[in-house]
């Protein structure tokens, strides 16, 4: 970066004269230091939760979610903030797709509300007296709710701001349920994606880099894993064991990375033949170094795109299983609310409709963003769709 400035000050400066401390020192960069601190703090907190206290501070799913946020901060947000020019370049390309920008904004709202909302709000409560309240500004025949919280006029029960999106058949506010559902959807989507991407990338790059027997063994295993449809595997497992969000994330995370591994492998096979890898090999870099510093960063664009497109499928799976009643009934989730409103389509149409709208738009937004990311991050996809 500095050949110009050096030639300005004269080419007499020698290696041993460089003031390394002024240039930031020989120590680790700040990001690495912060990463080490964060990792240690996280591990200590988890250990404390596991071994010291009896009452859990956070559930397993929540711990995984915190981990996902940490990884996201260190490996996505921080590098983007450091490389301003690259970020601006990606943003310019991403911005071209207006639907994706709107989608991204919507997802940020869902993410923030879903992460912070459940910390502030109390869990939605059962309240038989407030059952079947219509959403605000809407009204329903006053025969539908047993008692109307809002005003009754001309035989119509009007919605109130107390329950902006109405209530379910047991009087839980749908607005609150939607917020709690955001958390579940975000957790399932992001945590599962992190597991899938970590394992898939590690396996894919290793298979491509080591080739031979390692490749054969890993990819044969992927073949087996891909044969078993995860949907039905999860059905069997929930049937045999107690279903929970944690189980769902684990099953889909640890058995769903086959596709990513194949994708990364084929991408890394092409990268492996590039001259910079050969150069690193000749310079004596170790296998681990080459994989971490040269192979992985160069397949990361493919991975990020594929990961974004995986998130909606995990969200849909969770919603589907919640709808079927095959997840933990204590976790309020969109699918569950939709299921509870299924029997009341005649009178209370909003119970099944509203959470579904949020679910649909969340999935749609992830698909839009993933599509735009593919266009923005992949330099080879210039021009065509």
């Amino acid at each position: 970066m500095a050949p110009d400035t050096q030639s300005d000050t004269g080419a007499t400066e020698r290696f041993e004269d460089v003031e390394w401390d002024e240039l930031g020192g020989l120590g680790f960069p700040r990001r690495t230091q912060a990463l080490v601190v964060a990792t240690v703090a996280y591990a200590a907190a988890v250990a404390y939760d596991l071994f010291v206290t009896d009452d859990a501070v956070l559930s397993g799913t929540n711990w995984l979610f915190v981990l996902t946020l940490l990884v996201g901060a260190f490996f996505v947000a921080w590098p983007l903030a450091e490389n301003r020019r690259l970020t601006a370049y990606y943003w310019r390309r991403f911005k071209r797709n207006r639907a994706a920008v709107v989608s991204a904004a919507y997802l940020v709202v869902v993410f923030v509300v879903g992460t912070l909302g459940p910390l502030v709000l109390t869990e939605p409560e059962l309240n038989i007296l407030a059952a079947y309240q219509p959403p605000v500004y809407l009204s329903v025949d006053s025969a539908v709710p047993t008692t109307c919280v809002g005003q009754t006029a001309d035989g119509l029960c009007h919605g109130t701001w107390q329950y902006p999106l109405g209530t379910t058949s047991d009087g839980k506010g749908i607005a609150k349920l939607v917020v709690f559902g955001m958390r579940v959807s975000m957790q399932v989507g992001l945590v599962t994606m992190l597991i899938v991407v970590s394992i898939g990338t590690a396996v894919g790059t290793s298979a491509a880099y080591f080739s031979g027997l390692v490749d054969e063994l890993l990819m044969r295993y992927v073949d087996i894993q891909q044969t078993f449809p995860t949907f039905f595997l999860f059905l069997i497992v929930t049937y045999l064991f107690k279903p929970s969000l944690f189980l769902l994330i684990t099953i889909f995370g640890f058995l769903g990375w086959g596709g990513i591994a194949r994708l990364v492998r084929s991408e890394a096979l092409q990268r492996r033949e590039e001259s910079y890898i050969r150069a690193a090999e000749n310079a004596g870099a170790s296998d681990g170094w080459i994989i971490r510093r040269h192979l992985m960063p160069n397949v990361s664009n493919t991975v990020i795109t594929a990961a974004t497109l995986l998130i909606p499928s995990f969200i849909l799976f969770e919603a589907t299983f919640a709808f079927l009643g095959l997840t933990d009934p204590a976790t309020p989730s969109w699918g569950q609310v939709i299921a509870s409103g299924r029997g009341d389509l005649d009178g209370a149409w909003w119970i099944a409709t509203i959470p579904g709208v949020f679910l649909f738009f969340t999935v749609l937004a992830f698909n839009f963003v993933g599509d735009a990311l593919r266009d923005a991050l992949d330099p080879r996809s210039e021009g065509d769709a």
Partner: protein
Amino acid sequence: MSMHWYVARRVAWAVVATYLILTITFGLLAVAPGDGQTAFAFEAATEGGDVDEARETFDEITGRDEPLLTRYTNYMVNMATLNWGWSFTRNQSVMDALAAAYPYSLMYAVPATFISIVFGYAIGLYSATHQYTLTDYLGTFTAFFGISVPNFWFGIMLILVFAVDLGWLPSYYQTGRGVWTLANAKQLVLPVVVLSTGAIAGNMRYSRAEALEYVHADFVKTARAKGADDWRVLVRHIFRPALVPLMTILVADILGLLFAGAYITEVVFQIPGLGLLSYKAIIQQDTALVMATTLVPVFIAIVGNLVQDIAYTVLDPRIDYGDR
């Protein structure tokens, strides 16, 4: 590698995969805490029987008191000889239950598959050859809608609009209306629409992307230069090479989509097919039936993948058999 050798190896692999899956399922069954014994005992207790006796009977029927290896051998032999056990909630053999259920699944899955292939490919090819037109954008939008809309919610919304509000179609499936009758056709409309929407979107995206690779290919330009009309170019020069990779996607993805989607569709519309059978078995803790109804789609997926790979070698003479 010759093609015969490849096919033989591929078939052997399917057998190995089946064997592995059965073994894994057996392992899960062996370590699982709740595998229907409690439900069976409960059933006996409600009918006035003795609980402990019922537990013993259950162990005897399922052979749980025998050593693990014997159980494993029995399990495998039973699986191979299609002796898949007894459904105690339905009081019939699992095979009979499956045989009674699958026609209902076919009734809506076959039309849905057909529709999704025809419409998906047609729209996809049209989009590819008419890129950046209004129709193309409309098609892309439809695809996004199709892959994003949750099947079960879409089904409920269709019921809300077409059954509850408009009253045009029945809101759930009723048996005993014949097969080739108008009443049956009417109650199958919504399930077919729900199931094919997602599949159309998938097919459309793939076929558009595949066709785009050939739209600007040299041989297509040559064909145009020689005066071939649009239809001929589309069918003979774009669709034919695109068909090979589409085959690959078709079997595996459609099977997966249809099976997972069909499960939900049957529960939403109460169609007494394989999906609803499986769902009820899970709710009622009927282990033999749960296993059978979840393994059937898995086996179909294995066979589907096999057929697809073999079809690929037959269709594409350029294929390298050493490659995965």
